[in-house]
């Protein structure tokens, strides 16, 4: 019971971040029919831009994040992430969508992903970094851990879960209630139709690329001080978001968010749960969900994923 609670809460915290990535992948797919392979790395770019402003490239300790400085860093990081995401869309996705060239946007977004990884690696040459924590979680409970029902859980986990939920519900509200959101849904339904009735499709889709990047980045930064960050952090988060979005076949963004939450819990369970003497262990944590989704899309592809018949 104790372990179950621990798995659930830490899993939901990780899953909340995955969920925002999944929702982003899903929204982008529904808007454009493409998968942004650079999504995770674009967010990684934002995270490391924040870190650069906050602490330079030196190894950092948990202390040393003054609030004004942190806010400035966050704004710079968000600007980098949003700007680079929108630039990726306008420069490398939209031109090839018009031409119907799949290889063009696939190669373009993958090239952006590796270019960002290389740039981060060139500036931040250590294998991993500690992200400074602006919020005093280490003062909560015992050195940042609180006991619930006998389980020891990071206090940060609750903050991450709450923030992820708030961001997910907020963006759901945005899609549902605002003019911008309604326009995006129109584009997802029928891009040509939306263009004809006067929706500035390219501008709005470019904005959506930036917006999903910003949302995912906020959640990733909230969770970042909990563990070491490296150039792989963004990439792997993007990958897990993709796994969750594929598990719901690029369904509505809110479904994808829930799939992300589930993925987080499943990963935590794979790593920690013993059933009698039988345990999978941490080695299987990342491999199994990936394998499952790969089999899922190749054995039971959705009608949309299948090659066009006519």
């Amino acid at each position, binding site marked *: 019971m104790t372990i179950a609670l621990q798995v659930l809460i830490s899993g939901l915290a990780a899953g909340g971040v995955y969920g925002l990535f999944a929702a982003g992948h899903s929204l982008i797919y529904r808007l454009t029919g493409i998968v942004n392979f650079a999504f995770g790395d674009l967010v990684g770019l934002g995270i490391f831009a924040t870190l650069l402003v906050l602490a330079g490239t030196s190894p950092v300790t948990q202390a040393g994040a003054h609030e004004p400085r942190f806010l400035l860093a966050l704004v710079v990081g968000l600007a980098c992430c949003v700007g680079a995401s929108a630039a990726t869309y306008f420069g490398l996705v939209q031109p090839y969508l018009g031409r119907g060239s799949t290889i063009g946007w696939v190669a373009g977004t993958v090239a952006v992903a590796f270019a960002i990884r290389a740039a981060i690696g060139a500036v931040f040459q250590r294998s991993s970094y500690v992200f400074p924590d602006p919020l005093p979680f280490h003062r909560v409970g015992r050195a940042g851990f609180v006991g619930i029902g006998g389980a020891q859980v990071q206090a940060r986990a609750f903050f991450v879960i709450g923030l992820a939920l708030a961001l997910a519900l907020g963006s759901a509200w945005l899609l549902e209630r605002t003019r911008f959101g309604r326009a995006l849904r129109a584009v997802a339904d029928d891009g040509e139709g939306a263009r004809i009735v006067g929706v500035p499709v390219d501008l709005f889709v470019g904005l959506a690329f930036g917006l999903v990047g910003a949302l995912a980045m906020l959640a990733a930064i909230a969770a970042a001080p909990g563990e070491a960050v490296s150039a792989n952090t963004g990439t792997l988060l993007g990958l897990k978001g993709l796994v969750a979005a594929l598990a719901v076949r690029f369904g509505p963004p809110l479904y994808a968010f829930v799939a992300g939450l589930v993925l987080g819990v499943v990963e935590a369970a794979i790593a920690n749960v013993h059933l009698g003497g039988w345990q999978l262990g941490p080695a299987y944590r990342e491999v199994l969900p990936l394998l499952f989704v790969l089999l899922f899309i190749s054995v039971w592809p959705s009608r949309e994923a299948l*090659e066009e018949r006519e």
Partner: protein
Amino acid sequence: MTAAALARTTGAELRRAAGEARGAWSPAAWVAAVALAIGLLVPFLGLGLRMDALASTVYLAVAATGLGLTVGAAGLPSLGAGAFVAIGAFTSALLMARAGWPLEPAALCGALAALAAGLISGGVVRLRPAFVAVSTWLLAWLVWLFLFAFPSVSGGSQGLIVPERTLLGLSATPTVHYEAALVLLVLSLLAIAAVRRGAFGLELSALRQHPPLATSLGVPLARRRLGAFAASAAIAGLAGGLSVQLAAVADPAAYDPFLSFKLLVAVLLGGAAATLGPAVGVAALGLIGLVSDPLARLLQLPLERFDTAVAAFLLLFVLALGGDGIIPWLSPWLPRFRRTRPPVTPRQGGRSGTRAALKVEGLTKAFGGVVALDGLSLELAPGETAALVGPNGSGKTTALRLISGAMQPDGGRVLFGGRDLTEAPTRERVRLGVARTLQTTSAFTELTALEDVLVGRSVRRRYGGGIRTALATPRARAEEPVARAAALNALALVGLEQQADVPIPELTSSQRRLVGLASALATEPHVLLVDEPAAGVGAEELEPLARVLAEIGRQGVAVLLVEHNLRLVRMAAERMIVLAAGEVVAEGTVAEVGESELVRQAYLGAQRL
């Protein structure tokens, strides 16, 4: 067969092959032979090159050449080629390090393991290219994460130490590896060039350009693409299995998804459209590395990061320039070595064999709640031309799709010559003799008219598989002129034999329609389902079209014609079936139905027959 007879036939076959080889020997072959000789001599010229780096570059070129088949010929953007290299490398390394195997069988097992992985993950070839990219991307990460998560397999961060071995009886020094890799590269280039030029390559190209059209002509989409995907995987696995011994250590870090990316960059940089492109791309990456590596050291940047950045920016550069790659850019300046094909004469005479009747019973199909076809029954006698007419949305095209197997009915049966075809896949129906043309003016726009029609020969080839094409077996070669003659015959039937070598984009839209008709005819159908051949055809072109349809009927082919243009129907068809809201409302000779005031007013509007 006695040994003597076998020896005689083998001898004759070899002499014939030698004769053909002499005939095909061209300036291009001289250039290639000289380049190969220089390549083989490089280690002995005392140029002071690092042979280990050179050998591993050539192995990379082998893997990239294999990937060219998937990316270029099949048009599938694979982001997981490195995963197959890794599978080959670790299988081979484990067999050598843990079981003490020699290099050659270990590398072969590596290739087999990669082939198996390619076949297992091969379900993805049924997907759209975008989803192929997604799933191969997942595969690349899966293999890499697996290697890190299971140090018991991969040796962890130190990797697996691979012991010294011999290669083909020689101590496996970098020079020996280099020579072996070069021979492997040449063999894979030859095999892939043969495949791309042969029937298999033509069908892959058709599937890449227009999947629905290729499928409707009976080209097996999943089988052909899986063949290309698995062959790429096996070649990558073999390159990985051999090169891991050269590296002396199987280090998981060397097989991260960047390897897959680098292979894709090489393919696109060199030019996916050309067989030689990927190898040229690897060479270009290597040459750029000669410049960029000292630069990285000068700037004190980590080398592997710098390589990643260089590859990524090169790819963005290639994409910005249109994405064709080096070989296609150079091709205007390269001397043309045109192969002249022996002229083919159309086969004379009609086709023989029993003619069967098509019978459709109670076909029903609904889309969501909308009933498109409600219990359609019709019969088509051998050699008869019947027209299926009716207003838009009355279910005509749906009927053709159900009969041809592009779609499964909710109820009812399709019978042909007494066989129940309701469940049969399209290829099986085309093979038995039920072919269809598509409604749109569709043809494979990168091909010539004759090549386009040759796609329709898919179901009639017996030796057109990938392995036979790659090895250019006598039967596969003997089949080629037969197929070309039949295709030319089909083109002659629609009156386009003069346009055989004209590229499709240079034909008029009604000529393209006729090419589509010829492609369907090339499948040697007994029943031809023709979907609106007159749409967008000028009034003066109707009569030639009607003549073509009449000629097809005279050859004994039954035609079911879906058409809006009633002039064409009157000229071409004997019988008429009127469909409205998914049901047959009138049936009879063209004259009878034309007389029926009810039908004319309700369904044909005011137009007079």
